[in-house]
């Protein structure tokens, strides 16, 4: 084995790439959960986003159009979840599972013609001078725009939740839908919008995997990242910056184990591949005591009786 083959600068840069799909999906889900809705369909929305984005990028030749299609696809699928849980008042856990199972099938169906196809490359930020700096250049200034979008989105969600009236109303709806309804806020409408935002983010995250991280299309390629994103929201205790931190941590674990695999460490590949999932469980165990940020109405069904 040869650990010197691991370049720390490239490691950090690729860690950020590995973290971005997680971050995007987690930020979306964070907003959804803040509104009091638990959408377990993140994995399904991600994989549908992955194929929508991939197909659009291949057909149009533009990765950015691909990302737009991915967001639209994710949002559209989440609308199904919104209909089920907000209109038909179905159980959120069951509906989320249904969304994931359906999304996995749908993406496989949509992706039939795209196995083995290469997507158009995404543009990278190229600031003359800055991007060429040693160490700092590749880490901070050498990425694709979506990676920066993820960070910007985190900041926006933080500002929105903490400082704006829209954020206050969103938190209020998630805290007690009955009280929010009594004050005249349209609980269902707000939640549907939040769910669709979450769907769009998950779609973007999925497309990031199929267009930039991997980049190609294979069935079931999200491989549980949607579920890890759900765990990440708990890890972050519903705070945006902690979600960013968590995503980078998980990204680090993923990239590290891939590097160790490549470096030929004496641990069997399968056990290395398990590590992100085991780390997720470990983190969940450590952090499940802290539910301070958890919205009180999370997962409850709202029906404005009388």
């Amino acid at each position: 084995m040869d650990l010197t083959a691991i370049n720390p600068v490239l490691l950090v840069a690729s860690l950020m790439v590995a973290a971005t799909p997680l971050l995007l999906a987690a930020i979306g889900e964070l907003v959804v959960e803040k509104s009091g809705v638990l959408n377990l369909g993140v994995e399904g929305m991600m994989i549908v986003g992955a194929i929508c984005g991939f197909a659009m990028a291949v057909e149009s030749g533009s990765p950015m159009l691909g990302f737009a299609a991915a967001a639209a696809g994710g949002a559209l699928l989440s609308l199904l979840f919104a209909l089920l849980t907000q209109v038909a008042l179905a159980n959120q856990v069951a509906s989320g599972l249904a969304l994931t199972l359906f999304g996995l099938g749908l993406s496989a169906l949509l992706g039939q013609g795209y196995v083995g196809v290469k997507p158009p490359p995404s543009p990278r930020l190229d600031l003359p001078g800055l991007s060429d700096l040693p160490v700092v250049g590749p880490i901070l200034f050498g990425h694709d725009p979506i990676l920066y979008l993820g960070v910007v989105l985190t900041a926006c969600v933080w500002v929105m939740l903490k400082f704006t009236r829209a954020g206050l109303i969103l938190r209020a709806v998630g805290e007690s839908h009955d009280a929010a309804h009594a004050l005249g806020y349209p609980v269902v409408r707000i939640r549907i919008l939040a769910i669709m935002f979450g769907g769009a983010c998950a779609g973007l995250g999925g497309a990031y995997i199929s267009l930039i991280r991997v980049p190609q299309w294979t069935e079931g390629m999200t491989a549980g990242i949607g579920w890890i994103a759900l765990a990440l929201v708990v890890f972050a205790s519903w705070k945006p910056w902690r979600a960013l931190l968590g995503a980078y941590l998980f990204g680090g674990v993923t990239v590290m184990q891939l590097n160790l695999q490549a470096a030929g460490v004496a641990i069997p590949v399968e056990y290395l591949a398990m590590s992100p999932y085991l780390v997720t469980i470990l983190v969940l165990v450590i952090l499940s005591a802290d539910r301070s940020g958890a919205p009180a109405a999370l997962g409850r069904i709202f029906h404005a009786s009388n």
Partner: protein
Amino acid sequence: MTDILLSLSGLTKAYPGVVANDDVSFDIGTGEVHALLGENGAGKSTLVKMIYGLVKPDSGEMTLRGRSYAPAEPRAARADGIAMVFQHFSLFDALNVGENIALGMEQPPRMRDLADRIRAVSETYGLPLDPFRVVGDLSAGERQRVEIVRCLLQDPKLLIMDEPTSVLTPQEVDILFATLRKLRADGTSILYISHKLEEIRRLCDTATILRLGRKVGTCVPRDTTARDMAEMMVGSSLKTPQRAGRDLGPVALELQGFSAAAPSAFGTALKKVEFRVHAGELLGIGGVAGNGQDELLAVLSGEIRGTEGSLRLKGADIGGLGPRARRAAGLLTAPEERLGHAAAPNMSLTENAMLTGAVRERLETRGFLKWGAARAFATRIIAGFDVRTPGPDNAARSLSGGNLQKFVIGREVLQRPEVLVVNQPTWGVDAAAAAAIRQALLDLAAGGAAVVVISQDLDELMEICDRFGALNEGRLSPTRAVGDLSVEEIGLMMGGAHGMEVADV
């Protein structure tokens, strides 16, 4: 009181199977405190929801200062100067006072300015409030202040108050009334919803009485006796519970130095609770909501584990036993929340009879259930306690509040408890059912059982109990015989001044 602020005429609202309001008309004058009086289910809340824009009337109309008024949503009502203080369900525990208030306003100022205005208004009306405290940590009285201040910041023309005193100590009621009188003097009208007749007589200028959705009368409360108003409200003469003379037996239940940690972030810890209740005795435990009532019931029923101190039933230590073993030993309980705690809403009455009856009524043998016996037990409860329902196969949620409460109390009483603990036995129950429940509790005590009644309704406790104690922040005052107590003393007990020791902080 010359000009009319809000005039209602012919308001009707029907829900499937029930007419909530039928052709209700009355006027509220400017600067008037107008009482809306009626039993639970008389249609008071539907009526105010129509005024506040939460519900639209099927027919009839409202005029506000001479102009047609039909709010599409609460926002519109607030814009027209109508504000409402809710009984519950309108505060957000995890948000702070300022955020809660901002949510109730159309154009809230910046948080810093809002905080200043909150302080200003709360000082003017004698309602001290810290804008940056988290609402979940506040007492019931303070929570109500948040709602009132939220309304006052909008400079309302009409303030609707839904059962505002049910969560207050007598002293806090006095403070509230002072605030309301001040508002009236400033020209604000108040629609005051209550079923507490003495309060209405003290405060209100006019009263409109509803029964079964219809207006059945108007009166000037000061000139009408409470009894007359009550009879208008109920529609028949009331039966006062009969208490038979009883001999006290030996101590049935005894708590010593009994403590328990708070079960949740916004729950209350119990601190060294002590009392003893004899066979044949009714002990009343009063106190403002949220001072440990739910927790006390839960530790007695065995739902909350991990308590300190001793809990003895007829001398035997039962502190380590779970709910089923306690039932077997003779300690039965009935929690406050009927749907979801005392009963499972979607399950049939037979299944709900099984819920607590399995042990003492022998509804199971070695784990296998005897549904026939459970059904017979449910039928016995229905017959014995006049529960109005087609039969034991109906779901608990299909019963009205009063009927379900009769079922819940009946289920425990019929199991012949040694000690029965009930929490809020008549909350949200119509007067006839409440009277029946109180009578059942008295009869149970007369039969030799010890009964502990936890209630926020002081009148109820004074009416049926032999001894009285009050919970305050998880501490129980020493219990005293009811006959020796004055209203002031009760207020002090509820407020936490036990007159016995320096509070340990």
